[in-house]
């Protein structure tokens, strides 16, 4: 693996990304909407009277898991809802790379630039590595930025205990570990779909399949069935690593020089 060639690809991808308004808008939209939604909800709830959160009589009352019961109805509910939102922040590294990767690969098809590119001494692995890094890094950075921004905003709109729960180890670790893993997974799906299916939308649909378990888990959390703890986090990490290895292996296998060259018309 020749690092300077990988670097050349990354530089080119980022230069191109910076000039692609569609991709830039897509990349900015999701984080902005999520951060605004999370902070807006917290701001509203903070200003709602305690009585409304009573699980039996209040209009916003919810059944709380045992771990949160001791916080009281209002704080407990806010933490619960915030926990669910943290899953949505994890959707950022999952949703963005598929756009970036699909654009970067399908873009090469549209401009017919792949043939001159493959006529250089670059290896398929180098090209793929460059493209994957170029898609994963901005998505992860944006996810982390959104998390930090939400935490900072939370200090302003909600009580310190909510902030403390938002940055408890399960979430910081999840952002640190799952963020990149989701991004990698989604990029690999983008590569597979766009090198095989000739259609950016198909790539996004495949990635949507991976979003389902995440949303499912977030619903279970909201309904008080599951409480996120370190044990669960480790299991999720292990599963994600395995799925990643499988999907990346497939992506590398499917991304064959001659196939992509002769079938990408």
């Amino acid at each position: 693996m020749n690092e300077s060639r990988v670097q050349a690809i990354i530089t080119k991808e980022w230069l191109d990304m910076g000039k692609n308004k569609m991709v830039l808008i897509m990349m900015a939209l999701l984080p902005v909407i999520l951060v605004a939604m999370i902070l807006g909800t917290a701001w509203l709830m903070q200003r709602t009277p305690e009585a409304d959160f009573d699980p039996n009589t209040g209009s916003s009352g919810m059944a709380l898991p045992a771990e949160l019961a001791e916080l009281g109805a209002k704080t407990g509910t806010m933490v619960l809802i915030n926990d669910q939102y943290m899953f949505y922040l994890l959707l950022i590294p999952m949703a963005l790379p598929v756009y970036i990767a699909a654009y970067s690969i399908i873009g090469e098809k549209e401009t017919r630039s792949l043939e001159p590119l493959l006529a250089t001494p670059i290896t398929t692995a180098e090209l793929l590595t460059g493209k994957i890094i170029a898609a994963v890094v901005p998505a992860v950075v944006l996810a982390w930025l959104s998390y930090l921004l939400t935490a900072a905003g939370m200090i302003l709109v909600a009580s310190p205990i909510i902030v403390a729960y938002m940055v408890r180890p399960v979430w910081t670790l999840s952002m640190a570990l799952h963020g990149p893993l989701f991004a990698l997974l989604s990029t690999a799906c983008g590569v597979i779909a766009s090198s095989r299916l000739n259609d950016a939308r198909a790539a996004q649909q495949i990635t949507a399949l991976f979003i389902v378990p995440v949303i499912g888990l977030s619903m279970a959390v909201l309904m008080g069935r599951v409480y996120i703890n370190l044990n669960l986090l480790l299991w999720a990490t292990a599963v994600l690593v395995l799925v990643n290895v499988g999907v990346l292996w497939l992506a590398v296998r499917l991304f064959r020089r001659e196939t992509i060259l002769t079938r990408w018309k």
Partner: protein
Amino acid sequence: MIQAMNLTKRFNGLLAVDDLSLEVREGEVFGFLGPNGAGKTTTMRMLSALIAPTSGTALVNGHQIGTESQAVRASVGLLTETPGLYPRLNAEHNLGLFAKLHGVDDVDGQVRRYLTLLDLWTRRHDPVGSFSKGMQQKLAIARALLHEPLVLFLDEPTSALDPEAARVVRDFIETLKGRGRTIFICTHNLNEADRLCDRGGVIRQRLIRVDTPQALRQGLYGQSVLVRLQQPAPGLETTIAGLPFVSSVSAVEGGLRIALEDPEIHNPDLVRTLVEAGAAVQFVEREAHSLEQVYFDLMRESEAPETEVTA
């Protein structure tokens, strides 16, 4: 420089290139002619180690395609059928990427050199998508030259251009000749091949013939002169046909077509004989067969074996 040995390429049963053996010498400009779908681009892709042959092999710059593909790619430059530039990136960045991928030492210097050489230096910061087709084609040629390859493949370098831009590109290609660089050009433009190439090959799945443009013409027609006469002179034909160096004589509108071994040597004798025989000679001209005519004749000739191959 390029040595193709029995190169064959099938795409799912479709025979694109059939048993092609060919040698292109160092410093030579070789024209590759053939109709649409003849397998020109496919051959070029095999020779630049982009796709693998179904069977057969080739040596390019001493490296074998297939086993030393990376070395082949490092030592050749390829201008693809479509320029394939990145439209949102500027000219400098488009070239910079390729200079880096080829491991060029002085990336900036080499990029500046070629942008200047092709009159694109002042436009270096503009997105390439805003360039005219001619400018894009020049940039794409520059991109293939950045690493100073010993072998240059040009796939239809002027086909998408207006006559003006085509001339600029053709002139530039002419400047690339004779610097030890071997150039392999696919083209449909026979005049271009005539002007640029030292030798040419005509292909239609199989390689039909390889020779210099002149020899391709001569091989088909021999050499002949047209003699224009003020009025037809009966009996003249037999007199001329009796000359030892004349191979055939035929009457044409306004005169005679005379095929002979070497017009430069035999024309004086021919003219003297004509005048002595009482012919009123107006003009004597060399009959020029354009390569185009040769091409069509070769294509017609190749029809018969062609149907056998596919049958």
